[in-house]
């Protein structure tokens, strides 16, 4: 096993301390990563994981933190990411960072030379090398496609390819699986295993503990900017991880929820069809379902299956054909305002892109769009707003210094809760949740599940999309399996399994393929 103590450390940090204007992100971290291992870096939201890998990559340059770093035994001082690259350190950041206006190939080899004679770049060479790399790691994305036309998950994969393209000795992946679903994760793991076999060392950050069990050799758990535990593979155990991260015992992961008794549907969707739009989305055909008050409906499926589009259509964000009724009354939804007026709320899947308002503080982020009741004649009551914000923050345990704090520096989980608070403030009857636990740590996840169940118990109709099949199966009363913009299977709580979903999807794809009598192309892009 590569995690055995015999192999020398490739990355070592000693007493790394990093603070941001009064926020202590790291309080003296000693990390040791050995050659050839896949090293899990665990911790709750805000524990300092991203900060640590940013330091190891020169994103936070030498001088902006204290402590020592050694790479392959030699002390290093990275002034920029290129210094880190020169030492063979590769990095896949947590947030999606791509060049939207450029092609996939240009993104993958951005900043690299040797793509033609001397300083020249040969388009052909660039595409060839991208194709070769993709073949090697099992990606089926057209190197010539514009990145602007890719989905979030595909962009993530392009970022991974970008890090791999210069053959790093050490690769650090900051929540690479947060927007991937089971199949894609498996494929990514295959790549990581192959890299490991070739002698690469990896740091792998995730909140999905089963992934740690599946692929990692050792784990370091951060807590409040300190190392709380170092755990070898032999001692791996989800409960132990959670205790190290939070100091609490593992709670029952999915809170108990009785499916509501039969009742007329609160939300009915009929014949929902969305035209595929070139480069932006690929369409949904003839989707219909009902959700009762108090029911949690899950939409399961693979990446790009159309779940997000369904939610966006119901919320009036993309044009569609079909009928939507709330409590039996047909409603016309053309824009978000119509959906809100009908009592529908949406939590979007991409916090950075269409969730947070980075120019407004925490409080205003929560109340935006919900100021009506907090104002009289258009004038916002400071007092009402403040108490509403504090109440919302308290009830969801949003950890921010004050309602005036900047949202940019909240950890991912707290950002997610903040958005929940915003969505709930309007008192929706129908709640659409797209990846509600994306990037959220285990204990916060539990709080979110609790919240979902509480809402259901109050009679809210919920539609939940989640890429982790285990999660969607655990939380939903009833599950629809979406594949290629159609509903291909349905099962009740306790009747489904990850296998069943995957089989339904595969069957749907096979049927589609049969129709053209050609084999399906396996790809994760």
């Amino acid at each position, binding site marked *: 096993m590569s995690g055995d103590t015999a192999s020398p450390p490739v990355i070592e940090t000693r007493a790394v301390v990093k*603070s941001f204007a009064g926020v*202590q992100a790291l309080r003296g971290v000693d990390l040791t990563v050995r050659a050839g291992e896949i090293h899990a870096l665990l911790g709750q939201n*805000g524990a300092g994981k991203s900060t640590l890998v940013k330091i190891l990559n020169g994103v936070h340059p030498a001088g902006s933190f204290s402590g020592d770093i050694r790479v392959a035994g030699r002390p290093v001082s990275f002034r920029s990411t290129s210094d880190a690259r020169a030492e063979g350190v590769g990095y896949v950041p947590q947030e999606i960072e791509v060049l939207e206006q450029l092609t996939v190939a240009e993104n993958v080899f951005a900043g690299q030379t040797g793509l033609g004679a001397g300083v020249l770049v040969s388009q052909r060479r660039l595409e060839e090398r991208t194709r070769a790399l993709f073949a090697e790691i099992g990606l089926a994305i057209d190197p010539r496609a514009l990145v602007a036309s890719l989905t979030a998950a595909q962009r993530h994969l392009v970022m991974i390819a970008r890090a791999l393209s210069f053959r790093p000795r050490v690769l650090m992946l900051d929540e690479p699986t947060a927007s991937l679903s089971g199949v894609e994760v498996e494929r990514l793991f295959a790549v990581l295993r192959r890299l490991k076999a070739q002698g690469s060392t990896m740091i792998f950050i995730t909140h999905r503990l089963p992934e740690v069990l599946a692929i990692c050799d050792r784990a370091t758990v951060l807590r409040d900017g300190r190392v709380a535990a170092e755990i070898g593979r032999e001692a791996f155990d989800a409960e132990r991880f959670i205790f190290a991260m939070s100091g609490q015992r593992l709670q029952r992961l999915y809170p108990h929820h009785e499916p509501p008794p039969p009742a007329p549907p609160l939300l009915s969707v009929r014949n929902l069809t969305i035209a595929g739009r070139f480069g932006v989305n690929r369409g949904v055909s003839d989707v219909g379902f009902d959700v009762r008050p108090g029911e949690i409906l899950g939409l399961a499926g693979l990446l790009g299956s159309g779940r997000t589009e369904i939610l966006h259509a119901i919320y009036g964000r993309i044009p569609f054909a079909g009928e939507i009724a709330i409590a039996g009354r047909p409603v016309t939804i053309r824009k978000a305002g119509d959906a809100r007026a009908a009592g529908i709320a949406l939590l979007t899947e991409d916090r950075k892109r269409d969730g947070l308002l980075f120019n407004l503080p925490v409080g205003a982020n929560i109340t935006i769009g919900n*100021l009506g009741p907090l104002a009289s004649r258009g004038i916002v009551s400071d007092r009402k707003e403040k108490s509403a914000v504090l109440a919302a923050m308290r009830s969801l345990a949003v950890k921010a210094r004050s309602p*005036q704090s900047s949202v940019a520096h909240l950890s991912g989980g707290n950002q997610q809760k903040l958005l929940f608070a915003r969505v709930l403030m309007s008192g929706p009857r129908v709640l659409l949740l797209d990846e509600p636990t994306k990037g959220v740590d285990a204990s916060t996840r539990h709080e979110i599940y609790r919240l979902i169940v509480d809402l259901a118990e109050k009679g809210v109709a919920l539609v939940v999309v989640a890429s982790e099949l285990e999660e969607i199966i655990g939380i939903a009363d009833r599950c629809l399996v979406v594949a290629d913009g159609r509903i291909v299977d349905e099962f009740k709580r306790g009747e489904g399994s990850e296998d069943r979903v995957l089989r339904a999807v595969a069957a749907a794809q096979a049927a589609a393929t049969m129709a053209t009598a050609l084999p399906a192309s396996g790809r994760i892009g």
Partner: protein
Amino acid sequence: MERTVGRPATAETSGRAMRDRLTRLVAVGEVGVLLALVVIVAFFFVLEPAFLSERNIRAILRVVSFVGIIAIGQTLLLVCGEFDLSVGAVAGLSAVVSAKLMTALALPVPIALLGGVAVGGLVGLVNGLAVVRLRIPAFIQTLGMLFIGQGLIQVVTNGYPVYPLPKVIGEIGMAGFVFGLGWSFVFFVVAAISADFVLRRTVLGRNMYATGGNPEVARLVGIDTARMKIGAFVTVGMLAAVAGMFVMADLSSGTTSIGSGWELTVIAGVVVGGVSLFGGAGTMAGGLIGILLLQVVTSGLVVIGVNANWQQIAVGLIMVIAVGLDVLRRRTFIAGSGSEPPAEPASPAKP
């Protein structure tokens, strides 16, 4: 921060609140530019006490009131995430149109003035519709409108000042109530206070920040971002018209050069005052202090007798230094000492 276990909660809370208050104080956009303003005023005053003479203050405030009226609109528009380069031409156009209405067409003065405001509003509406509905970048649309407006001024006047104007116009311009300042200043102050109130205290203002901060999110929470932006364009157009007509009253003449060159000075002023060119950040007070700062510098350099050739150089330098110090302040107090670029969105870090 929030997970600093092991410390007594109360002490932590109060220390934290203190720090928060401090951070918030220096984080406010206005503080930096206000400080710069105070230092510069003091500097000029020491060199030449006449700088703070009643008359000079009055003259400065008078000019500031003209450009300031436009700056109010421009700040609102910038908060919504757009900007308008046509304000100077709109000011000039509205002035000469209303002048023509009250002379060539002999309309009653109030009607003619309303006509001028209507011209400004109309231009603003066209700008807004083009930017929002046709998605023409504001830079191009409003620069095009700057040319169109300048051309229309020539068409309307054939190049000659519209003169003489009805007596009452001159009287409006001459009026000197309120510290000898008169109508334009009163209008400016009232408009500034109202706009500040709207931005800080109303749902509308909040929605404007959201629109400028991230229109996608604003739409998702049900804000009609199109109406927001078009409204802001119309407002800035009408305010530009009012400013132009006040200058006209001040000169008692519909001069064709009213407003020429304002397009960049107005934006420069409010940006110096911390309003972001990228939308969603900045305050009314900041924007107006910025405009005042530029006017104080221009005026002060003349008062202390700096050679004309060096005045422009000094204006350029001071503008850059004021913003530079402000950037430094933000970096030091808000983002820590880190040299990496923080995702510091409330700052106009790169308009």
